[in-house]
């Protein structure tokens, strides 16, 4: 008799206890202790982009991403972070866990060309913490100098033949200290630097094109092979699809930035093709700070995306350094 009562009690306990345990468990979501799990779907920008695209997190809270694609191959990366990009393939789930050490706004973006609107695939993770959001007091150089990015900047002087740093070095004339200072060079276009250098005493015996070779040499001295390699890598991954692998502005995506495509995508803005980095008139009139500003802000009426929240300062300068290889032989 006692055993039967015990069995009944057990059954009643089970029937009441199980739903109760489930209800109690819901009070303590797994996210609160071990971070949150984010099921994220990637679609082409035209059909929705990232879902969800706005995330909030605490500092040092691990975010477990479960990434999958609903259409084509996408990539997932977080701007200005060392965290490596992962591929997001249709029909597969890519898992990744990330925790942020500093509060702030982080932009995540697609890393594989997934269509004409690839660069629109971006989202934001807002990370809050006890410490106040650190305001980067340091503004980028173009903002400090107050450069108007949209103003035309034709070069007042252009070389006859392509300037070569090697020819400049073979002249055997030491470059004065002023032209070795990256701070100086970043603020001036090659054409400006050329006109200043032309007036110097040490260039008196040189032809105009030889002075251009000296400018190329100064530009080469202001960068490093490592920066150029990094710049080239960033260029091929992010820029070459529109600006072309040879920098001529004839990338495979340039055709899709037609006036018609622009009109349907946005309002009827002026349409401009991607910039041609092999054009001396345009490039030699631009200072590195101006190019930095164009990369950070984007726009320019050509549908150029903004890269400010994605590239670190080092990456942006490496990219600018690489752009000069379309003008100068190093």
């Amino acid at each position, binding site marked *: 008799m006692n055993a039967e009562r015990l069995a009944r009690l057990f059954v009643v306990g089970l029937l009441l206890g199980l739903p109760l345990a489930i209800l109690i468990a819901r009070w303590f979501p797994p996210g609160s202790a071990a971070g949150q799990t984010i099921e994220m779907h990637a679609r082409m920008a035209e059909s929705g982009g990232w879902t969800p695209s706005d995330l909030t997190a605490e500092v040092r809270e691990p975010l477990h991403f479960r990434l999958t*694609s609903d*259409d*084509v*191959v996408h990539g997932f990366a977080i701007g200005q972070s060392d965290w490596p990009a992962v591929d997001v*393939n*249709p*029909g597969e789930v890519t898992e990744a866990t990330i925790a942020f050490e500093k509060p702030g706004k982080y932009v995540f973006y697609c890393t*594989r*060309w*997934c*269509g*004409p609107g690839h660069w629109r695939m971006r989202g934001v993770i807002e990370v809050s913490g006890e410490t106040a959001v650190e305001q980067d007091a340091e503004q980028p150089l173009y903002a400090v100098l107050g450069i108007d990015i949209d103003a035309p900047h034709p070069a007042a002087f252009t070389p006859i033949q392509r300037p070569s740093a090697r020819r400049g070095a073979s002249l055997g004339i030491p470059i004065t200290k002023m032209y070795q200072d990256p701070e100086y060079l970043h603020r001036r276009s090659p054409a400006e630097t050329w006109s200043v250098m032309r007036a110097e005493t040490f260039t008196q015996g040189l032809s105009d094109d030889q002075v251009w070779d000296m400018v190329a040499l100064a530009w080469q001295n202001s960068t490093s092979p490592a920066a150029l390699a990094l710049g080239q890598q960033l260029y*091929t*991954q992010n*820029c*070459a*699809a*529109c600006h*072309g*692998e040879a920098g001529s502005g004839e*990338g*495979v*995506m340039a055709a*899709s930035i037609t006036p018609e495509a622009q009109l349907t995508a946005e309002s009827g803005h002026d349409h401009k093709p991607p910039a041609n980095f092999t054009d001396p008139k345009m490039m030699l009139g631009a200072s590195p700070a101006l190019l930095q500003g164009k990369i950070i802000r984007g726009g320019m009426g050509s549908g150029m995306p903004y890269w400010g929240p994605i590239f670190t300062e080092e990456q942006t300068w490496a990219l600018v350094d690489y752009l000069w290889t379309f003008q100068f032989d190093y």
Partner: protein
Amino acid sequence: MSAHIPPSFYKYRASIVFALAGILIALAPLPSPITTPTERHFRVEARSFEYNPAVLRANPGDRVTIELIPMDVVHGIYIDGYNLEFHADPGQTGELTFIANRPGIYRFRCSVTCGALHPFMIGKLQVGPNSLLWRGAGLATLAALAGAWRLRR
């Protein structure tokens, strides 16, 4: 000698001749044209969901280089039979070099899911002459001849 041949042989003489001709057409080794292996370079533009050009022709032993230029999204090439795969992003031309040492006709397909019609993004790699087609045509002609012969009887 002729006494040993059964009379049914004469009855089926034509059929045997046709059958032998059929076997000859189907299996006879073709005089392979002697070609010196060369370098072959193909520039293939890939667009959803087609290759341009979609037919690549080479001779056995050729050194084939395929340059893949995706025009919109990430595309790839997987060559059946050769078991080779590579893919490329728009703006980053991909390249694959191999020796076409297996004669025959092979399909190549997109190896990266590129959209709804991705499974139908195919092209053809033809190494050497298309002997299968000519043998098939020969056999068809033979069958037509045999049919005509039969009708005349």
